[in-house]
């Protein structure tokens, strides 16, 4: 490390009150290079970026020790010693930042153009017209189609990916020497993520700026970084060039982190999903949990548990003056599949593909427009109230966000006991308490946790509580709607293992709804790929992943960042937005017929319309 680095952080410490969030952190960022700071939630990676921007004081923290030297234009300045005024001149001008949530970091009441122009007027001496011209140029730089028209649009009229491009354009407005990107693609779909990553990479080499890329995603690190700092609980665990780190991780924590990352293609050649032993760090010591076994739980010889035929779910959204419907969301269009006992059936697709709506319709949270859902042979439409109640006992739903899916005012014991009491499975209080304790232990928690409230648990623990709650009514099918997406990778790996263990022991079937191809590959027996509410490809996992037949499936697989820096792909990324499922009333979608290309492997006919090639 040379002292000529653009930014050099030395033994930085950040504290909130008496709590030390970052301790003794040192690293350098050289001009034109990308440093990735990677770590799980609570590792202090975002706090570090806020400290560099000196925004950490705004959120109640303080820099307790160390220095942050910024060397530009032949001057070396210690950012920790600058006044607020000096810092304001630097922010946006020399150091710029983009945030995770493109939905909330733009002001909704100003047009995109006004917001970029404002940034330019603050820092550069430009006339309004010149600023406007520059704003247009910036939007072209981030490859927004029809930049001139975009300037006049409001943030809500843009998709998430487009908003993130606007954020990048704003960050680049003054040609910063350092760009800090805090999880810029976490909230986006994989295909859009791939586009944003390639834009950042191209602009970096064009503008020769340094980038600090903060992420939890090892795949993104492998794609983007030159150097990597691994953080854990506020400390630097390891720093290395990206190739070295992936090839020879020195520290146990890094190894555990890398081994927990689900890798696309890791299951090649396997017919069935497989449980693999995984290493977890407990009290600083690595420990191996789980074992290796093949997940041969699916019972295709039995009658299907759930059969869905020609399911259609639509929502009316726009109405004309007289209350007549003019537009509908075509969430699900003629979808048919079966779920067999003990099977993990995965639904994959991007936002708006209708994958969650299918799950919600099976769970009766959403009425179907037409079509047939049968549970153990009996159509839902013909069920009595009592039978519908029984269905709510036998089919359980796990939501994406474990922070939102437990009632904050109830103890977790109450929440877990609720399905038992609702369905009258056990009627004496002491037996219910015993069962709750048993369920908590089943998911790896302790029985005495029943008296605590949800906020006292971490995300992973809360998702375990949700699983315990789902198990309470002895279900046959669990619908897991993005149940792993909000979790850190190491926790994710543990929950996957728990899901598989429960499937093996209890013969559970899962409807696994996810956008994460690598996790789906790891867990599922069969996969259905959805695009705009229709199944475009459907078949055994191995067939879909190893010989994807539909162009959309191939696009989806291609966009997944691979956690291997050697496999960095520089082929041109696919452009275009995710198509919208909103259609006007007279414009019915064309149903793509499925044809069987191999036993059990169905592929929709290619239709160029609506699917950008």
């Amino acid at each position, binding site marked *: 490390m040379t002292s000529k680095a653009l930014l050099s952080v030395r033994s930085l410490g950040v*504290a*909130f009150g008496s*709590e030390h969030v970052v301790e003794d952190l040192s690293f350098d960022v050289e001009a034109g290079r990308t440093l990735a700071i990677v770590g799980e939630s609570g590792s202090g990676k975002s706090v570090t970026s806020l400290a560099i921007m000196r925004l950490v004081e705004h959120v109640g923290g303080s820099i307790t020790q160390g220095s942050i030297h910024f060397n530009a234009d032949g001057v070396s300045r210690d950012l920790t010693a600058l006044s607020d005024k000096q810092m304001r001149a630097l922010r946006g001008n020399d150091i710029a930042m983009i945030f995770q949530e493109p939905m909330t970091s733009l002001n909704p009441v100003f047009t995109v153009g006004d917001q970029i122009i404002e940034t330019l007027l603050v820092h550069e001496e430009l006339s309004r017209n010149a600023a406007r011209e520059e704003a247009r140029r910036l939007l072209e730089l981030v490859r927004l189609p029809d930049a001139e028209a975009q300037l006049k649009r409001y943030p809500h009229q843009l998709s998430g990916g487009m908003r993130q491009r606007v954020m990048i354009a704003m960050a680049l407005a003054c040609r910063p020497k350092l760009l800090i990107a805090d999880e810029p693609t976490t909230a986006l779909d994989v295909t859009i993520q791939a586009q944003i990553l390639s834009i950042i990479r191209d602009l970096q080499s064009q503008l020769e700026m340094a980038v600090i890329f903060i992420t939890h995603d090892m795949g993104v690190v492998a794609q983007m970084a030159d150097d990597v700092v691994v953080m854990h609980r506020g400390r630097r665990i390891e720093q290395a060039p990206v190739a070295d780190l992936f090839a020879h991780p020195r520290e146990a924590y890094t190894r555990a982190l890398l081994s927990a990352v689900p890798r696309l293609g890791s299951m090649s050649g396997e017919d069935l999903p497989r449980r693999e032993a995984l290493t977890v760090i407990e009290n600083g010591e690595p420990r191996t949990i789980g074992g290796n076994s093949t997940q041969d739980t699916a019972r295709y010889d039995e009658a299907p548990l759930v059969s869905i035929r020609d399911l259609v779910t639509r929502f009316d959204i726009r109405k004309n003056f007289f209350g007549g419907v003019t537009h509908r969301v075509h969430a699900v269009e003629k979808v048919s599949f079966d779920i067999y006992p003990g099977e993990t059936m995965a639904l994959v697709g991007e936002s708006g593909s209708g994958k969650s709506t299918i799950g919600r319709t099976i769970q009766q949270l959403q009425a179907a427009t037409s079509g047939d859902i049968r549970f153990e042979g009996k159509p839902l439409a013909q069920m009595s109230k009592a039978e519908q109640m029984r269905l709510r006992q036998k089919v359980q739903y796990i939501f994406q966000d474990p922070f939102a*899916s437990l*009632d904050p005012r109830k103890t977790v014991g109450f929440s877990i006991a609720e399905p038992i009491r609702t369905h009258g499975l056990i009627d004496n209080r002491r037996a219910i308490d015993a069962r709750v304790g048993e369920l908590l232990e089943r998911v790896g928690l302790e029985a005495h946790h029943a008296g605590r*409230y949800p906020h006292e648990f971490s995300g992973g623990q809360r998702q375990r509580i949700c699983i315990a709650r789902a198990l309470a009514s002895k279900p046959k099918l669990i619908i897991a709607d993005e149940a792993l997406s909000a979790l850190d990778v190491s926790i994710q790996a*543990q929950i996957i293992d728990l899901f598989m263990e429960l499937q093996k022991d209890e013969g559970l079937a899962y409807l696994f709804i996810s956008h994460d191809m690598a996790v789906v590959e790891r867990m599922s027996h069969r996969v259905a790929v959805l695009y705009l509410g229709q199944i475009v490809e459907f078949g055994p996992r191995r067939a879909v992943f190893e010989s994807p037949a539909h162009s959309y499936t191939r696009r989806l697989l291609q966009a997944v960042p691979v956690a291997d820096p050697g496999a960095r792909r520089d082929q041109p990324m696919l452009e275009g937005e995710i198509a919208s499922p909103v259609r006007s009333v007279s414009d019915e979608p064309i149903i793509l017929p499925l044809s069987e290309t191999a036993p059990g492997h169905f592929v929709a006919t290619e239709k160029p319309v609506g699917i950008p090639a």
Partner: protein
Amino acid sequence: MPDAAPSRPGQAKTARRQSSFKALEFILGVILVGGIGLAVLFSGFLFPGGGSAVDLAARLTPPLVDMAHPLGTDPLGRDVLARVIVGGEISLTVGLVSVAGAVVIGVVMGLVSGYYRGFWDVVVMRFADVQLALPFILLAITFIAIVGGGLINTIVLLIVSQWVQYARLVRGSVLSLRDREFIQSARAIGVRDIKILFQHLLPNLLGPVIVLMTLNVANNILLEASLTFLGLGVDPTIPSWGGMLAEGRTYLQTAWWVSVFPGLAILLTVLGLNLLGDWLRDTLDPTGRTRV
């Protein structure tokens, strides 16, 4: 434990400071509300005459001059202390019962219209809009003209005019809560609507309702006085805090004690209720409690 629960920075320190403040809040609230409540409850025993004994010779005696009248006397020579304590009966009854009634009706209406939407929502909310468009005094005059005055009618009038506030507040909270995942997941399990409404939704929206309640108790004690002043409320010969405040107004420059003590009684009651309300709101919220 596979992964440790994250703790928010600085949480421990603020939590400690908060919990001692909380205890103080509770003790003060109990002393104020309990003291005033007990005094009012036993007012008949403490002042058998009800403070209505007139002694024109001792009119407008200042406080602490004559120990028979520690808080002085009013223009008719009646004992201010006795009247403040006896007057609490009407004021507290009106204040507490009217708020309780309005909360029950308003919360149920708000829960139902927010959760089910549709027809009921339209009916309840349009009715609420119509009612909000009527000025309170107009409503009061019309109502009293039709059904007559008196304690019970005054309380009914206040309930009728105030349930809308709670209904709108609750409906708004329900609309934002009903699509949250924990409500969805309760529905997915098959929990009955009545339990979702009262076990899940109600505890989560009680905080703002409690705040509005404590504000309205004070408001209603004063409203009762205005109504009585206009001849629309309770029999004006029965003492009440609001009524005494209004009576003493004309003597404010020469005999401040006539109106200051009933005013102080209202102030302390409201302060006590506010403290208890805040304490209750925070105690009901498990996220605010110190972690064990």
